[in-house]
């Protein structure tokens, strides 16, 4: 049976010592999990290794840790595969990021994750008293929010979120996915209020930087970033919510620029963002102008460092096949309904087949 070397980040808050690395050799078949490895080390070698774990089946969400630098559930990461991505023949296991460490691999979920969940008013707020029987709602709407319901609150996305690293107050991927669970629920009566609240919060909807880290690490395919984007689409397209943080304008600017040029025209992004997507508005609307002026030092720095040149700012070439890009836009705009991808509807990515 193969031997695996687990390099575990240890921390004992009672010792007064800093965190340190300790290696454990475990013998298990390659298809067994990193959690099995940690438990074997704990069972046979050192009972003091702390890790939360329970179901061993990727349902309870207890055992999210960082394995070789990437957040994952220890119970559904196979030893064999982890080793391939490991360093110097060892599998590196650390506590998740963005949350304080309590001991070894155990982090304080309450201080970060659950506080953020509580922030999004995570319970159904129907209008008026419930009906005598069930609420009658479209079957698809329930399947749709089941993707967000599938979240097991393991915190893997919170631990991996790059925006949270920069802004610890960001509501974050898990809590915002939870918010979509209510926004997408036709039984909820506070859809607009919820969207307005999350859009207006400067640490809310528009704090996400589209880095995909949460989508990549989520063990349940909740795809938190997709849920955040749906919240944005609901906020803008359905309710026309134009937040004070220019989140709406920034997104609109992005879309308009791509539609026009096919690639990002960086010099126009900032002014258009303040002008709710429009370059002209940003130059004539007093509010937008007021916001533009404080960005002057940044612009000057950009010019000095060569990141922006007057030539680049004025002339931005279109993609040679910009027509193709525009066709995508036309195709999407021509559809009556928004197309949302949902794993409970489309299943695994891959060729469609009849069964």
């Amino acid at each position, binding site marked *: 049976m193969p031997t695996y070397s687990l390099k575990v980040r240890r921390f*004992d808050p009672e010792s007064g010592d800093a965190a340190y690395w300790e290696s454990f050799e475990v013998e298990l078949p390659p298809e067994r999990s990193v959690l099995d490895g940690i438990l074997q080390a704990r069972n046979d070698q050192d009972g003091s290794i702390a890790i939360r*774990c329970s*179901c061993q089946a990727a349902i309870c969400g207890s055992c999210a840790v960082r394995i070789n630098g990437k957040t994952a559930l220890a119970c559904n990461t196979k030893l064999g595969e982890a080793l391939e991505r490991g360093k110097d023949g060892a599998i590196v296991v650390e506590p998740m990021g963005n949350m304080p460490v309590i001991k070894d691999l155990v982090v304080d979920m309450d201080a970060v994750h659950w506080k953020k969940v509580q922030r999004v008013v995570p319970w*159904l707020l129907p209008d008026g008293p419930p009906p005598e*029987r069930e*609420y*009658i709602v479209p079957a698809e709407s329930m399947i749709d929010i089941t993707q967000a*319901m599938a979240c097991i609150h393991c915190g893997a996305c919170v631990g991996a979120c790059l925006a949270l690293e920069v802004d610890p107050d960001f509501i974050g991927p898990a809590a915002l996915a939870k918010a979509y669970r209510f926004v997408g629920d036709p039984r909820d009566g506070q859809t607009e209020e919820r969207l307005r609240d999350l859009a207006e919060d400067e640490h809310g909807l528009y704090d996400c930087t589209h880095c995909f880290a949460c989508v990549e690490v989520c063990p349940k395919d909740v795809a938190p970033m997709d849920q955040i984007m749906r919240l944005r689409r609901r906020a803008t397209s359905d309710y026309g919510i134009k937040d004070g943080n220019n989140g709406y304008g920034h997104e609109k600017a992005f879309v308009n620029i791509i539609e026009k040029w096919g690639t990002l025209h960086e010099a126009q992004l900032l002014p258009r963002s303040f002008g709710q997507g429009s370059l002209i508005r940003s130059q004539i609307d007093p509010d937008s102008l007021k916001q533009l002026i404080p960005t002057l030092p940044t612009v000057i720095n950009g010019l000095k460092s060569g990141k922006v040149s007057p030539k680049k700012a004025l002339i931005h070439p279109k993609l040679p096949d910009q027509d193709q890009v525009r066709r995508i836009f036309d195709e999407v705009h021509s559809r009556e309904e928004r197309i949302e991808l949902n794993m409970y509807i489309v299943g695994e990515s891959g060729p469609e087949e009849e069964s």
Partner: protein
Amino acid sequence: MPQHDVLVIGAGLAGQRAALAAASEGASVGILSKVHPVRSHSNAAQGGINAALNPEDSWESHAFDTVKGSDYLGDQDAIEIMCREAPEEILDLEHLGVTFHRNEEGRLGTRAFGGASAARTYYVADITGQAILHVLYEQLMKHGEVHRYEEWFTTSLVQDDDGRIAGCICRNIRDGRMELFSAKAVILATGGNGQIFNPTTNALICTGDGIAMAYRVGAPLMDMEMIQYHPTTLQGNGLLITEGARGEGAHLYNAKGERFMEKYAPNKMELASRDVVSRAEQTEINEGRGFPDGTVALDITVVPRKRIHEALREIVNVGRDFAGVDITREPIHIKPGNHYVMGGVKTDSNGQTSIPGLYAAGECACVSVHGGNRLGANSLLDTLVFGRRSGKHAALAAKGMAFPEPSYAQLHDEERMIAEIVGRERTGRRVSEIKAELGAVMDKHVAVFREEAGLQTALETVRRLKEEAKTVAIDDKGTVFNQDALGALELQFMLDNAECIVLGAIERKESRGAQYRTDFPERNDEEWLKHIDITLSGDGPEISYSDVTLTKWEPEERKY
């Protein structure tokens, strides 16, 4: 000293439901759990929850199916209550926000399940337990007045001089602080004890804590021999494949490609009750018609692919991640595996045990609605109905009652006990060694088929392990997250559970429900239409009997 009218121990479905019900009666409520509530094992209930909510269905039909499923050991008065109150419970959950599957008209839709004469299982894909658990937790977050003690481990129950429950003693896992809680009523909702078997579908936290704690203060345990082996679990790691798969139409085959359920349950086939299907599979395996790895095959490919993605999503993941099988394209190998304890702390239909002020609800309780065999999708229902009834009853009973003043002496005893465990020389066996030996002996001798000699071997082993567990070696000397020391306490809880299970299995000299004795292969209503109660007395476990309550349904031959 924290004080609550009602203190709930365990925060799965039964515990959270009890806490919310007690709070809605105006009681001050605390809810304690050794894990964060959403980590509770209720999560693992995949398939759904039963209720006769359709106008064409009736609670009587649901009740009869449950009685028959129980092999007539279930108490029919309690079963009637559960089935009558089921529709209301589903609607309450729906109104709170559970995203139950809808039919084309947008109304609640159902799926078929084992042992049921109508499709009455309501579900959320195959994450029903998780979906309900999370919605109840949303309600706990909403109702901040319910005090949550998350990651607190209860070590023992506390009684006053008259034997009435007065509170409990707990350890805050995060800092090791021991605390004495005062409560007018304590509701145990600590779940099952599957960890005494290996393999099991149960999570690592399912160590029978509440059952053992109640037993230690003298509450009788009932039907403990009734241990359910689920028909579709993965070989080796014991992971669960939902009965919903068969509910959606999946078939079982032996290695010769025969759909063997034709022989055992020609009418219901794969949807016979669980004890019947598990015995059929084990018979095929024992008689050499299984696969070399000791399994038979579950073929889900007959279910349309779109339907699998929509309704069996989690099983796609389990197959891919834990068995390396794409269930949409090929059969998956499965076998019967430990899943559920029908028995538990004996209660009445309000959750009251024989100890004044002590309640139990959910898997740790035995009302008894499951008798010899639980029907799939009745466990969630049990947790919710009897969780709510316990919470409400406890809250009403606590009204006007003065707070008990439990003695600190027991707290100090428990502190010394843990100090002894942590401080002892490392000369004994390791917790994991004892647990492994226990799991193996239980799965060998106290499983689908049982007989006297094997059960006696199991009893001897369990009793020896109980002695060895008193001196297990502990590495962790700290107070913060000392899971090592708590593991030693859980091991003792597990061994108390195991002893009672084996004693019950030895005592019941017949075959009924999950108890199949190869040396007594027939059901014997003359002598054994009765519950086996086990009570801790001064000298150890004492066996007595209690009547099975029959209302409408006389025992008859059970065929599927």
